[in-house]
């Protein structure tokens, strides 16, 4: 569905995208992951024909986004970053207008508009001005617009930014609903967002492709950590932690006599068992033992390290 080769975008001196290549198959839900300024929005703007790349090629459904922008536009439903909407229109009127722009047959327009409004849960605000709606509703209006023409590819730039947890959950549910029928591309800088909705992720960092693939495979490379809190004198715990050899250990005394150890690095499935057994052996009280899943930050750290090491 999407095929991107060596995409580069420069704004004057600043390089926003640097030779990014990836592809997305039809029907996949793919997450674009990266910190702010990684090049996610730039890539999306190029894919949706809003702007051109400095070099490289991008194809959507086989059509080049530079040479056949009209055909690409008919294939996509796009919600840009910050979901811009005209505040002076009523929800239903706006969607009707968008349906006309997207060349929906006139007799089908009304039916389709109410269909997407129902799907996105905005029927009850159909007659309200967009300017009067809360952020969560506006976000759903933007998504309704993206779905309107039943596009093959739906591109959502930060669909959950600025929403409260309930709204985030409803947007997530909507994305999962779309999964079967459409190819979906979502961007986010929050790992858990992507984790729950996407089959695959493309990770960008400073305009470069860090990794792409199934999220689980990538996460396996990232360092999980184990946290243990034991009651023992600090020097002894330091030595004990070093002997355990579970990657890098950070040991810090707590005010109440406990010592907190964080092991990061060589963590596998049996790491917690070993920590427990070792603490037991010494007869130290253990009040916490947990595994912390790697965060996006950890993933970035391990991916960037992996990238730099061979050099």
């Amino acid at each position, binding site marked *: 569905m999407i095929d991107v080769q060596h995409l580069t975008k420069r704004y004057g001196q600043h390089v926003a995208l640097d030779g990014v290549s990836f592809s997305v198959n039809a029907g996949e839900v793919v997450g674009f992951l990266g910190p702010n300024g990684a090049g996610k929005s730039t890539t999306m703007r190029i894919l949706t024909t809003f702007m051109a790349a400095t070099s490289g090629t991008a194809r959507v459904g086989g059509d080049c986004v530079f040479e056949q922008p009209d055909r690409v536009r008919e294939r996509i439903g*796009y919600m840009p970053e910050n979901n811009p909407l*005209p505040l002076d*229109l009523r929800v239903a009127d706006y969607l009707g207008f*968008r349906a006309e722009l997207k060349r929906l047959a006139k007799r089908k327009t009304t039916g389709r508009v109410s269909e997407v409004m129902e799907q996105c849960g905005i029927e009850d605000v159909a007659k309200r001005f967009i300017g009067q709606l809360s952020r969560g509703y506006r976000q759903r209006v933007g998504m309704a617009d993206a779905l309107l023409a039943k596009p093959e590819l739906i591109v959502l730039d930060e669909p959950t930014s600025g929403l409260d947890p309930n709204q985030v959950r409803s947007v997530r549910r909507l994305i999962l609903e779309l999964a079967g029928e459409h190819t979906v591309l979502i961007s986010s800088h929050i790992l858990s967002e992507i984790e729950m909705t996407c089959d695959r992720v493309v990770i960008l960092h400073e305009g470069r492709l860090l990794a792409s693939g199934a999220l689980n495979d990538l996460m396996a490379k990232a360092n999980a950590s184990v946290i243990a809190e034991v009651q023992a004198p600090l020097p002894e715990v330091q030595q004990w932690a070093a002997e355990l050899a579970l990657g890098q250990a950070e040991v810090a005394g707590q005010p109440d006599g406990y010592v907190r150890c964080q092991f990061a690095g060589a963590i596998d499935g049996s790491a917690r068992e070993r920590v427990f057994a070792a603490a037991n052996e010494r007869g130290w009280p253990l009040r916490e033992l947990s595994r912390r899943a790697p965060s996006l930050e950890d993933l970035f750290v391990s991916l960037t390290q992996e990238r730099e090491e061979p050099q």
Partner: protein
Amino acid sequence: MSVFRALVRRELSAFFQGPTGFIIIAAVMFLIGLGFLVVLSGLNGEATPMPVTQVFYGTYFFWVILLLIAPVITMRSFAMERASGTYESLMTAPVGDWQVVLSKFAGALIFYMILWVPLLICSVVVRFYVGESAVLGLGTMFTSALGILMVGCLYMSIGCFASALTRNQAVAAVSGFALGAALFFTGFFSYFAGDRTDWLSQLARHISLANHMESFTRGVVDLGAIVFFLSLTGLFLYLTHKVVESRRWK
């Protein structure tokens, strides 16, 4: 075609969804009324060999309205969409760049023509009292309307161009005003030209908007003037299109 119609309708509705359109209409009605009062008091009881349209034009209210109001009409066309970001969803819908440019131009032009309806009403009132005289014939009314339309095409295209260059509406209005005023005042060089026939004087006469407009209000349709207005309009629309397109090669 239906896409184009939807875009024009959206442009027009934007004027009337908020107070903007009504404020502009009120301001223009006031100025037209004032201009007409001046005409009527000048005509009072005296016979005039000139058509009323030409007398009204001679008060210069026409140019005041045009120069001040035209940039206000067009300032929001592109600048506002850019500022609010809706430009991005517009330009990624299956809509061509030309369709967007022409619809914004057409929307502004239609609104501009609506502004002159009060003048038509004033003329009808005068016609009612003076009867079918040479003073206000249908012919001069028609050619004056044609002149207003021609000048409108030019100024709306200049305004769209100015608006496409920026995301700030105030900047769009000021630069549109500057361009329009510069073009208008350049035409005054034709006064220095007098009867001379060198190329510079001829050029000065040719680019004098005031001269062209005056002949329209006299009831004269000069094909050269129409070509002049339409070609400049075309040029500015072409430039606007280039600016819109430039996002894809910058």
